[in-house]
């Protein structure tokens, strides 16, 4: 038996993949199927799922109330579409900002003396040692009306005798954006660093040798060669930002509701798992579509390395 297994390479592969495969089937595929089944069901008055087949949850997401006839203008309410759109733009803005912040830093670390690089990477990772939620709460302390930032600004205003009214920063889309950028920055720095670090120094020298100054080298050599890192980082940042609800919950209050919050509330507060499931699936499909077009344009970040 053991002897036969030794000779059977495909069987060995299956065996090695089996634990993960079971895990994925049990905890990803089956729940996903359940979610899609539930999303076509109807909520019972006491919050249970009635298994049936209706598109009500989806039409509701599109903005048509279940009590109305489709096409009747008065009952069209684009609230959920707005939430989806808001999530999408926020994820986009977060990703762009994170790239803008992460790239120079990653470049700096990759070009630093090899002995120092590990120290810098360590510093990048330190915030991850603190719980995600606690870090978001820390931003609350900074941003609220009597928060650290307003205290400092007030003190400065007092110093220069300028009238000062505390800024309302908390519970704004800006606060959510700042929180998201902060939370996901390391996930962009690391992959960009990795791809920058792989660029051989002789390539920079070759570019200079052929007449490229620093800016042209960055544009024509460094950026294209580090695109795999940017792509990987984008996937690592964009997808979670699309779905997360903690940051918007804490820093956005009731003002900034994202798909993540919507789903969470359907399951916990509104007790409508059918609508929550539909929203979850739509979120997933949206993320998949964006990722699909993105990776089709830029690849998964491996072509350049693997070609």
């Amino acid at each position, binding site marked *: 038996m053991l002897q036969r297994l030794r000779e059977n390479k495909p069987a060995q592969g299956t065996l090695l993949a089996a634990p993960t495969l079971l895990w994925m089937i049990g905890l990803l595929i089956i729940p996903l199927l359940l979610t899609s089944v539930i999303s076509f069901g109807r909520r019972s008055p006491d919050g249970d799922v009635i298994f049936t087949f209706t598109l009500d949850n989806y039409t509701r997401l599109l903005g048509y109330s279940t009590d109305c006839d489709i096409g009747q203008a008065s009952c069209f309410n684009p609230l959920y579409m707005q939430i989806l759109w808001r999530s999408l733009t926020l994820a986009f803005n977060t990703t762009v900002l994170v790239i803008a912040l992460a790239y120079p830093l990653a470049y700096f670390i990759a070009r630093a003396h090899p002995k120092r690089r590990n120290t810098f990477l360590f510093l990048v990772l330190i915030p991850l040692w603190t719980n995600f939620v606690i870090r978001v709460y820390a931003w609350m302390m900074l941003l609220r009306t009597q928060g650290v930032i307003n205290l400092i600004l007030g003190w400065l205003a007092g110093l220069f005798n300028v009238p000062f009214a505390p800024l309302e920063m908390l519970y704004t889309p800006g606060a959510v954006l700042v929180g998201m950028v902060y939370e996901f920055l390391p996930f962009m720095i690391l992959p960009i660093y990795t791809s920058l670090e792989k660029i*051989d120094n*002789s*390539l920079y*020298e*070759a*570019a*200079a*040798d*052929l*007449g*490229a*100054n620093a800016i*042209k080298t960055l544009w*024509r*050599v460094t950026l*294209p*060669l580090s*695109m795999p890192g940017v792509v990987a980082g984008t996937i690592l940042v964009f997808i979670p930002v699309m779905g997360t609800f903690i940051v918007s919950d804490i820093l956005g209050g009731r003002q900034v509701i994202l798909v993540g919050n919507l789903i969470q509330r359907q399951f916990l507060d509104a007790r409508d798992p059918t609508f929550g499931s539909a929203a979850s699936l739509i979120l997933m499909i949206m993320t998949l579509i964006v990722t699909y077009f993105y990776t089709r344009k830029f690849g998964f970040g491996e072509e*350049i390395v693997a*070609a």
Partner: protein
Amino acid sequence: MADFAVELRDVVKQFLTPEGNLLNAVDHVTMQIKNGEFFSMLGSSGCGKTTSLRMIAGFEWPTEGEVYIEGKAMGHTPPFQRKVNTVFQSYALFQHLTVFQNVAFGLEMEGAPKDEIEKRVRHALEMVQLTGMERRKPKQLSGGQQQRVAVARALVKVPDVLLLDEPLGALDLKLRKEMQLELKALQQQLGITFVYVTHDQEEAMTMSDRIAVMSKGKVQQMGTPVEIYERPANRFVADFIGESNFLDGKIKSLSKDEAVVIVPELNAELTGLPVSAGLVSGQDVTVSIRPEKVRIAEKGLDQNSFTGEVKNTVYIGTDTHVFVDVGTKRIKVFEQNRISRLDPGSYYTIGQQVMLVMLPENVLILKKE
């Protein structure tokens, strides 16, 4: 046009070693490279040849001294403002660009018009026989082809000087020899000054007009391949280039054009040797003779002939290496296999007594080091 394409004047380059010591990677090097010359820097790793090249390219700046290109002091001029181009040891091709784009890169940086770029890139690729490969990525080429792309990419800029840092190091022997001849032909055809760094003496000999033999950051000797081989300036060069038999000796007598050296190891004297400047009677010296210049003869001559015993023979195809003990010294002799050695009678047998002849003009007197 300036007198020299490249000139290094008393150049020093210091590096900090990992142990925190200062090391002169290049130690007061002066060299003058003529226009249109194929000039090689030859030495083993760590001799300062690559650092010297990098200072010409502008990747490093001298700690002391000055680099001149076409008569202009370079100071801290960055690489992209120097009219020199480099072929890197690792080729340093841009993997994200096609062959065409790689070669076009330097011209785009100059802001050359599109149709001119097109024309010049095609011409450069033709020159290195890569026509038809324009749209491939470097990874889809063989090592030899990648090397040609690197050459084309540098040459398309029509530099005053082309710098080549061990460009053939990664190729197998046969391809390397082909490329040596091709590069040499290219250089003669274009008339561009080539500065070539290599650790391979045969390569340097094959291609160069002049060679600088380097060791420990210093130039040991500069000259044509013939000069360097036939008249090595010191023991290092005689040892590094080709092979030599070294014998300890003492000058017994010295006239204007002849010297007699006592060689205790051979239990004999070498007479009628050519004299070089700076020798004095009674001086301890090293005499050197190339193995292929020692002759095994039936009968000795009046002078510089010694009886010895064959200790070993090694057949290596073109030559047979014969090791002969004379006195207390084992002398290495290379005999060309002009006749077939299939017949065992054509071989020397171990223990056989032979006569070695060293013609005076083939024996060099070197300073003892």
